[in-house]
């Protein structure tokens, strides 16, 4: 069922390789980078919020101690 005769054919895309692979490449790149960015953003947000929370509890403890 496979339509291509060789891997080189597949890469060449009948002369449209640049356009087809340009499209697929950009898509793969974006779909790989976006989740990574989201995950990284999530991690930094969590550490920041945790630090803020610790600072707040510390401040509260100080207030109640006084």
């Amino acid at each position, binding site marked *: 069922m496979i*339509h*291509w005769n060789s891997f080189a054919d597949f890469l060449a895309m*009948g002369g*449209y390789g640049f356009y087809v692979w340009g499209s697929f490449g950009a898509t793969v790149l*974006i779909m790989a980078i*976006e989740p990574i960015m989201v995950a990284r953003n999530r991690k930094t947000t969590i550490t920041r919020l945790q630090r803020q929370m610790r600072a707040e509890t510390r401040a509260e403890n100080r207030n109640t101690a006084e």
Partner: protein
Amino acid sequence: MKDRFNLYRFASPATFYPLAGTLIPYFAAISVIFGLAGLYLGMLVAPTDFQQGEGYRIIFIHVPASWMSMFIYLVMAFWAAIGLAFNTRLSGMMAQALAPTGALMAFLSLWTGALWGKPMWGAWWVWDARLTSELILLFLYIGYMALTAAIDDARRADKAGGLLLLVGVVNVPIIYFSVKWWNTLHQGSSVNLTKSSMAETMLWGMLLMAMCFWMYSIAVALMRVRTIMLERERHTDWVKAELAGQVAGGKK
């Protein structure tokens, strides 16, 4: 009054957050499966197009990306309407979580369209109604993100952004029907479930890829909305518990 309270609870971040967390892997997995199947059909099995040669294979990205760019905008407008009407907290967060993905889809539609246009029309870009309105869609996404980022107060940001989404929604039918209303270079609709003008494998490849894009968008948006929830609800008890749990249980 009671009715409203129920709705409020249903859309409560505290219940939605863990639900989203469990759903994400499933959506991601489905997306990968559909993607692989779609690529197999589209890139390896589908025959050459008699008019466009192998160049037509861009369709397997171009059309799903274009569809998703419009669909995500509609979903955001839907959430905006809900948010403005019922003042639910979750809807604004959903809209904000979807926006970057929608913008990327619009960008991909433009990018792949441009790469397709060069060999087919001999130009990277023409000023035709569909292309222009898709470009406007990208601008609307960016405008929405810029507006919500510029407003410090989250709830005001949601309302103002929601209003913008609703005003901009007129653009979506213009994109969709532009090929009918104006006589343009861009090709008209060819997906028609009753009488398909496309080869069977092409059609299936495209539909599978569309599913892949759809599931991908859901997964990414859910990931993003979870972060937004933590940020916005950081003074509530459930977020504090969640954050404390993350320290004890290590990275999740």
